[in-house]
């Protein structure tokens, strides 16, 4: 709550700058149009027109808000024009990819911590995997899966998982290694098995790290899903919405889809934050 005022101030500043930018960036087109029609515009008329264009270079905030509202509340949520429906399509693939990515990340991290060969071989290649231009292979992934008869949610989820496993891997390796020598020695002095060590020491101490990386991972999964939806002939989802908006030059639609995606991302991150607080509180680790 303490930060409500600062956030509002910054938001207000952003909106103000945005309006100015909208006028400035849309003005050339409006002037051109006026010149083509041989009319002279007053500055008031010019500003009014820049803020109400149908295909603005930069839509004004209220246009985006209206587009968002129209997409969310102006349709039945099962309608193909509903952002809720497209959001849902994206969300389901995101969650599936997030689940796969998290499982893979944790699995690899457990392997790395317990197996020296894995420790030395996996990490550099995991880094390299993230430098592969995902957008470039996304269509190929989709095609390869399609050739195996798998279409729809899974290929997108795999792309999402590709991006989200990495933060989980890094965070978990760090987390599983946080127990200090003394805590490990204690376990050793009690002659605890490796499984015991894992469940009673490594796993609980890694949870704060896990949650921190899960927040990064879910945002990455969303990006991955949208990337998967973009080029690959996806027919629904926020990515497809972005693309078709771009295809028809409907900037308002692009921006609405973009904001819908950002809101979705923020909501997901907040959700994980809530789960984190709940878990840590139940474990007595929240102070």
């Amino acid at each position: 709550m303490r930060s409500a005022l600062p956030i509002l101030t910054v938001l207000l500043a952003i909106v103000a700058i945005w309006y100015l930018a909208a006028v400035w960036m849309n003005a050339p087109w409006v002037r051109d149009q006026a010149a083509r029609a041989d009319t002279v515009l007053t500055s008031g008329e010019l500003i009014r027109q820049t803020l109400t264009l149908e295909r603005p270079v930069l839509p004004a905030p209220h246009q985006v808000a209206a587009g968002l509202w129209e997409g969310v509340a102006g349709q039945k949520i099962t309608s193909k024009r509903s952002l809720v429906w497209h959001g849902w399509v994206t969300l389901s693939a995101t969650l599936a990819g997030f689940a796969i990515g998290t499982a893979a990340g944790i699995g690899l991290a457990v392997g790395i911590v317990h197996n020296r060969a894995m420790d030395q071989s996996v990490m550099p290649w995991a880094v390299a995997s993230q430098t592969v231009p995902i957008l470039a292979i996304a269509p190929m992934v989709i095609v390869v899966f399609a050739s195996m008869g798998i279409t729809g949610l899974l290929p997108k989820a795999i792309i999402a998982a590709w991006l989200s496993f990495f933060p989980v891997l890094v965070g978990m390796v760090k987390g599983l290694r946080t127990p200090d020598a003394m805590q490990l020695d204690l376990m050793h002095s009690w002659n605890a098995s490796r499984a015991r060590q894992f469940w009673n020491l490594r796993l609980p101490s890694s949870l704060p790290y896990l949650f921190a990386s899960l927040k990064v991972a879910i945002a990455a999964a969303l990006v991955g899903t949208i990337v998967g939806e973009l080029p690959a002939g996806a027919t629904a989802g926020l990515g497809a919405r972005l693309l078709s908006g771009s295809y028809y030059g409907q900037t308002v639609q692009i921006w609405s889809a973009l904001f819908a995606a950002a809101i979705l991302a923020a909501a997901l991150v907040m959700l994980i934050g809530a789960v984190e607080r709940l878990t840590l509180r139940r474990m007595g680790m929240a102070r």
Partner: protein
Amino acid sequence: MSALPILAVWLGALGLNTWLSRFDTRATRLAVALIFGATILILWEMAVRIYAIPPVILPAPSQIGASFARNTAILWTDFVQTILKGALTGWLIGAAAAIATAIAIDRSPFLQRGLLPIGNFVAALPIVGIAPILVMWFGFDWQSKAAVVVVMVFFPILVNMVAGLAATEPMQRDLMATWAAPYGASLWKLRLPAAMPFLFNGLKITTTLALIGAIVAEFFGSPTRGMGFRISTAVGRLDLPLVWAEILVAAIAGSLFYGIVALAEKKVTFWHPSQRRQRG
């Protein structure tokens, strides 16, 4: 049946690596990583041959290598266009802007509390969405790619840098107070050095982001060169080995970029515990 040789190679490599990893010297560690990578390539090549996967779906590593050797001139042009001009310029501008902003708002808790949540929000934004907009604004050439990269890397670095500037221990700050150090001195001698590990964290994360951003942006319009351009045209021409050669370039460039930043981190933050320990 046909999976048997693949399985055999895999198990062999696994055994070799398990044995090698016991030595844990610099050389064996490198060898283990290389063997791991080589194994993947061999398995890939074997799979493509044994299952007769059509090259337009998945070319074999040998074909990719051949294409790489044949097209070095094209690959170099694309590398310069996308990585050097697009990604690197954008990354440098974005990082400089983020660091400057972090220092600028360092003295204003008000601005920090206002900007950081919004920064986190923007950082979670699927950047692919802004690419078409920025291409529309900044034109087709590398400038728009750099702009996308700037936007992508700005907030992660900003958030890390702000956290870093705040990451001094109370005792270290109190000491500065007991010496009545002016703002400039405590910024320069305490907060900036203390922020370095965080800053590098942000810089490392964003190396891969920068590559993704530059390539994605080419997808929305580009001159007739660049890695993203080449990949999409080559797919259209079913020249998959060239596509994978470009991907290879991207992966090498990305790993190198990451490696250089990690090396710089090691040099700059030599004093940080995470750099002093060998294994965590």
